């Protein structure tokens, strides 16, 4: 696997990691854009499949980058993408954590949270819409997305259980 792809993977994910305010879910549309449309590393169907695997596995959502790296360039791709998406935020968190402990006055932090959280959550909602659309599963797909979203909103069930039920319902819808 050529080093050029690893460098591209590394720079894309390191750059994106810096704007992943509110977690990696907000990055889904941009990762989709870069991987499918700009670099054409994979098609929509493969992207949807990798997204599903990364969501089904335990762990932080940033592993979408890891699995895309794995798909494109094997183990070196996985490591490059993971390290690239983890390192810049980790360095920021290290210094932010120290800063908070030193100054511990959090008016600015409160303001930052108050201001950025709604935008981050709006972006997260957009990620859900893009993820559902990318799966390209027609009306049945949107119906399952809506059903799982409502169940998640109104109950505090284990997400994995909801995902299992959603998947089973989708298969059932297609079998009738």
């Amino acid at each position: 696997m050529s080093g050029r792809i690893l460098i591209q993977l590394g720079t894309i994910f390191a750059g994106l990691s810096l704007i992943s305010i509110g977690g990696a879910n907000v990055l889904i549309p941009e990762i989709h854009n870069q991987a499918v449309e700009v670099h054409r590393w994979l098609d929509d169907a493969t992207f949807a499949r990798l997204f599903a695997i990364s969501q089904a596995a335990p762990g932080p959502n940033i592993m979408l980058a890891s699995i895309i790296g794995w798909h494109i360039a094997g183990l070196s791709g996985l490591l490059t993408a993971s390290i690239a998406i983890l390192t810049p935020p980790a360095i920021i968190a290290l210094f932010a954590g120290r800063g908070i402990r030193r100054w511990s006055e959090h008016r600015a932090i409160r303001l930052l949270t108050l201001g950025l959280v709604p935008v981050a959550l709006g972006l997260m909602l957009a990620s859900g819409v893009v993820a559902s659309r990318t799966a390209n599963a027609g009306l049945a797909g949107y119906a399952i997305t809506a059903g799982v979203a409502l169940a998640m909103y109104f109950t505090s069930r284990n997400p994995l259980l909801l995902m299992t039920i959603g998947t089973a319902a989708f298969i059932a819808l297609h079998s009738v």
Partner: protein
Amino acid sequence: MDTRPSLQTLFFSFLKIGLMGFGGVAAIARHVLVVERRWVNDEEYGRLLGLCQALPGANTVNAAVMLGDRYRGPLGALICVIGIMAAPLTILVAAATAYDRVANHPLAQLALTGAAVSAAGLILGTSAKLLVRARPSPMAWACAIAALVAVAGFHKGLLPTLACLAPLSLASAAWSTRRASS
């Protein structure tokens, strides 16, 4: 006596969080950090997670960095991050490999598409819940909806969207806290 948790304890605590955190790690992270280890109480955990959410990166990875650094410096932070990522990455590769074997089976295709649309639903439900719980001001609601429409409706990039809406939302937050305190 050194009462700080050892590197080994840090590693295995975050290994457990990573291993058990299906569908997002925040819930199990609270259980391990607050209930089992008592490194932080609920209030500190809430504040920690709130701060981690305002920073780039995954919340729980950021929390791992901060707690690791608090007890054992940068090496502790590194150990915690490796701990939280190790099991999920291994499982991820195993799942991807297993899937590649059965990829041509129609049922496998169907199941994974079903899982993808369900996962999208999890994201929507979780973010809607968090958004309503955050009790945004009308202006903050407008910023959230504008972000949704720009990215999902008009295919705007993340960076220009954030560049437009983040200052707007920060300004409105500053204005509403000032009004509330005066």
